[in-house]
């Protein structure tokens, strides 16, 4: 599922856009300097150390036993998703339709309006 969505859809979209834009190497954009990037890397490392300390410091309860043997299977997830969580599922489909319409509208070329004589 993850593979299908990410490598089949999102990466393909990215490749489409990259090939559509067709940038030369000098158009890539000026990157930040090495010093700034090192400062940001240090900051991210400090962030990660904070995360690690938080995660290591919490005493998690031992993992619960799985209630049934087909816990992560498609059938079980389908039963739960179309059972209790059908509302988020439908709303997600609505969101995808809105995103499709929005993406097509945003990426359209502006129409050239030519003045044609009106025929009454």
């Amino acid at each position, binding site marked *: 599922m993850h593979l299908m*969505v990410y490598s089949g859809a999102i990466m393909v979209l*990215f490749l489409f856009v990259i090939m559509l834009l067709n940038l030369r190497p000098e158009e890539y954009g000026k*990157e930040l300097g090495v010093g700034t990037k090192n400062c*940001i890397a240090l900051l991210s*490392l400090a962030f990660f150390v904070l995360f690690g300390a938080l995660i290591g410091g919490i005493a998690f309860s031992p993992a619960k036993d799985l209630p049934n043997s087909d816990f992560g299977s498609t059938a079980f997830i389908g039963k739960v998703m179309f059972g209790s969580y059908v509302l988020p*599922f439908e709303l997600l489909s609505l969101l995808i339709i*809105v995103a499709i319409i929005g993406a097509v509208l945003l990426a359209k070329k502006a129409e050239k309006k030519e003045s044609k004589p009106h025929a009454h």
Partner: protein
Amino acid sequence: MLTNYLLLSAAIFTIGAYGVMARRNILIMLMSVELMLNGVNIALMAFARHHADPSGQIFVLMVMGVAAAEVAVGLAIIIALFRNKQSVDTGDFVELKG
């Protein structure tokens, strides 16, 4: 075991956050946002297994759907932006006026 998954999720999230902060190319920043979403997905799955609750897995599916929709709209915006400014450098997008 849970802490290992959460550390992996934190590492992926941090790498994505570094990508958003340190790069100026708008396409790479969008890819880094996707990385952050993936990191969060791993954490959600780990907790779903830990508490033996399938709600976490459903949430992951919703997050993946939202990420796909967001990438579509984001890339359309990038295309429109490139058409107007002829640049993918975020340093050039400084005016609110189109």
